[in-house]
């Protein structure tokens, strides 16, 4: 009886402090309070800058001064800008050449690492090591490897009396050089594939073997579908990385040495590199914002295409259409 009386009193008091707040609403408010730091971050550090960059893309803005609304003229200028066109070509080259090549090579690495061989762990470590190298340090290392005069590759080719290409000093070889360097760093994707390969159902593989499937058929019809979600993941990450390619190109293309074109004849002028130059060398933040939005839309379209087509080639275990 006493307990009942006390609880009534407490209930009455809380009703006085928070009238008409139901338990559900209370929980919702507590929930909001807990996620408040994230909401503040989302609004202040993501959505607000995103909205402002969209607004700035329609203005003439230079960080310190006031901005003028210029309508769509930044976007119109983009399509007439030869350096922007070249930077988009260079970037899409990476998407078309570097992403599939990296996927194939990293999958090949994973298949090799999945074999029960002696020293497998050592190989895994070696393949993953490039991921541990800081980006700029890696770029400087490859700058030496690609040197046509005394670089590692051309020195080795020289032993066989082959005159190696000019690599980064050639307009036609500079982008393949970047692709080659990125293949070196595919250990991360290979580890993800390896995890997927370890999860492939052995009973399915054995069943296929009993049915007379050879090694290629087992790979093509059992292993590959089983790891297809990981291929999708790595493809999306690869596209994102290629579309935002910056540091290595900037360092290896000589962008950090002042007013030089990045890569010989702008051949390493990727979209993000050009965006940086426009924003921080020309101080044209409005124009740079327009580049960022075009880049964002292109990424959106590419990822959209991959996701839409993925329903045809990605298979999820236990998932039915």
């Amino acid at each position, binding site marked *: 009886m006493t307990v009942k009386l006390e609880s009534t009193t407490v209930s009455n008091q809380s009703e006085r402090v928070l009238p008409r707040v139901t338990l559900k609403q209370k929980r919702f408010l507590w929930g909001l309070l807990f996620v408040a730091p994230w909401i503040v971050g989302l609004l202040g550090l993501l959505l607000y800058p995103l909205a402002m960059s969209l607004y700035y893309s329609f203005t003439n803005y230079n960080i310190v001064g006031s901005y003028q609304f210029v309508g769509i003229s930044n976007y119109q200028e983009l399509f007439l800008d030869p350096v922007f066109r070249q930077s988009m070509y260079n970037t899409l080259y990476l998407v078309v050449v570097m992403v599939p090549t990296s996927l194939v090579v990293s999958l090949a690495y994973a298949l090799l690492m999945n074999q029960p061989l002696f020293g497998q762990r050592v190989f895994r470590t070696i393949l993953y090591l490039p991921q541990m190298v800081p980006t700029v340090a890696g770029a400087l290392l490859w700058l030496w490897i690609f040197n046509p005069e*005394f670089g590692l590759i051309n020195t080795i080719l020289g032993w066989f009396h082959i005159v190696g290409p000019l690599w980064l000093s050639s307009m036609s070889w500079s982008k393949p050089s970047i692709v080659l360097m990125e293949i070196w760093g595919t250990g991360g994707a290979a580890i993800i594939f390896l995890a997927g390969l370890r999860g492939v159902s052995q009973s399915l593989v054995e069943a296929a073997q009993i049915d007379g499937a050879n090694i290629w058929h087992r790979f093509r019809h059992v292993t590959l579908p089983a790891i297809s979600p990981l291929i999708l993941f790595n493809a999306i990450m690869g596209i994102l990385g290629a579309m935002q390619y910056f540091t290595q190109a900037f360092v290896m293309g000589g962008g950090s040495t002042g007013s030089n074109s990045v890569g010989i004849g702008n051949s390493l002028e990727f979209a993000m590199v050009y965006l940086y130059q426009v924003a*921080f060398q020309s101080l044209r933040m409005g124009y740079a914002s327009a580049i960022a939005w075009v880049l964002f839309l292109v990424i959106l379209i590419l990822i959209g295409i991959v996701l839409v087509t993925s329903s045809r080639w990605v298979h999820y275990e236990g998932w039915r259409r």
Partner: protein
Amino acid sequence: MRKMIWLLTGCVSSAVLLVPSVSEAGTTGNPEQLTLAINWTGGPANAVQTLLNDYNAKHPQVHWNLVTNVTEQKLLAEEAAGNAPSAAMLNTTDLVAAMATAGAIEPLAPYIKRSKLDMNQFTHASLYSNSLLGHQYALPFFEDTYALYYNKTMFAKAGIKTPPKTLNELMADAKKLTITGKDGQYTQLGFMPVLDKEAEAYLWGGRWATPSGQVTATNPAAEKGVQWLVDVWKQFNPNKVERFISSTTGAINSVDPFALGKVAMEESGEWFMPTILQQSPRVNFGVVPIPYPDGHPEYANLGSVGGNPLVILKGAKDPQAAWNLIDWLATTGEVIGTQQPKLFNEIYAVPALKSLVNSPKFASTPEMAFFWKYSEGKNIVPFPPVPDASAYVTALDGAVQKAELGTMTVNQALQQVQNQYAPLIAQEIKQAKVSKFQ
């Protein structure tokens, strides 16, 4: 009573808030704390610190603190955040006009007028590179000027008695001094066909823009200069030249073919000398004017110049104090920096004061004396101080490379840059005229 409490609280709060600002203003005996931001680090930054110490000792009402390794991008970010240092030394003159157009730096005319600073004491090129449409936005500190380095030993070995004076002589010497190895590649190059800051335009008196800021990438004189450089590449085979020079991306690289005695002639700045002496102290080199076109001695002693502009940033805490400092650094500071060997060996550049460039006795070596004097010549031209100069020079660099490698003709390459930058820069100049000079 309640009103009294509010009044008292207000007075106390105001007093508390005012105390630091009075103290900062230096009226209570403590010097005003101000900041000078520079991009330099290491030895050159130490030299600036020594100069600042000197200034602080002579001006007890202010204390300038030095912040090093501050890029222009960082400066702008600080400025946008309302936390700009009062004064700064930029790393390139290419950004002065862009920062002026953006309103990031203060125009100096009112300060120059008030302090009656004699602007005639500075070399013409240094003043021009720090201006926008004739309005001064920065004071020159130390400059970089470019001339032709040549290897005396290699010249003697090839039987060439004097360095080239004209472009034809340069080409003849370059051919004599170029050696091809058994594999068909160059083992020695007579002339490194690269001119800094797109100076090839100046060979026939061309300019990349008019003094009023009009872009002239396709002017016939500039095109002729670029064509000459492209022809040099063609004569020596672009692929072979590129292979040879790809062992270095610039004279400041750790391995320079001129310092190694693999290149007989190379255009570079005065700052290149320590690199040569450090990498190969035995290289016997000389410095001469960049050769001029045959039959056109009026273009003799040509070259480019760049420097380290001293600016007052918009939103500076004490712009007048900032002016006092940059005025001192550009004049007294430069004299001290030049005449004290310890400081000069760190800065190692060309002064912008006419009195110094004409005083070879203060130069550390005869070669340095040559650079000093050379910087004052009428054909020494900075990249034009136009808005977007930095992007314009980058675009020219890419376009000229394409012409050198044969993927475009010179005219196509320059026309592309003209089409892109002429309207853009014209628009920015128009806006600058409306917002700043009317």
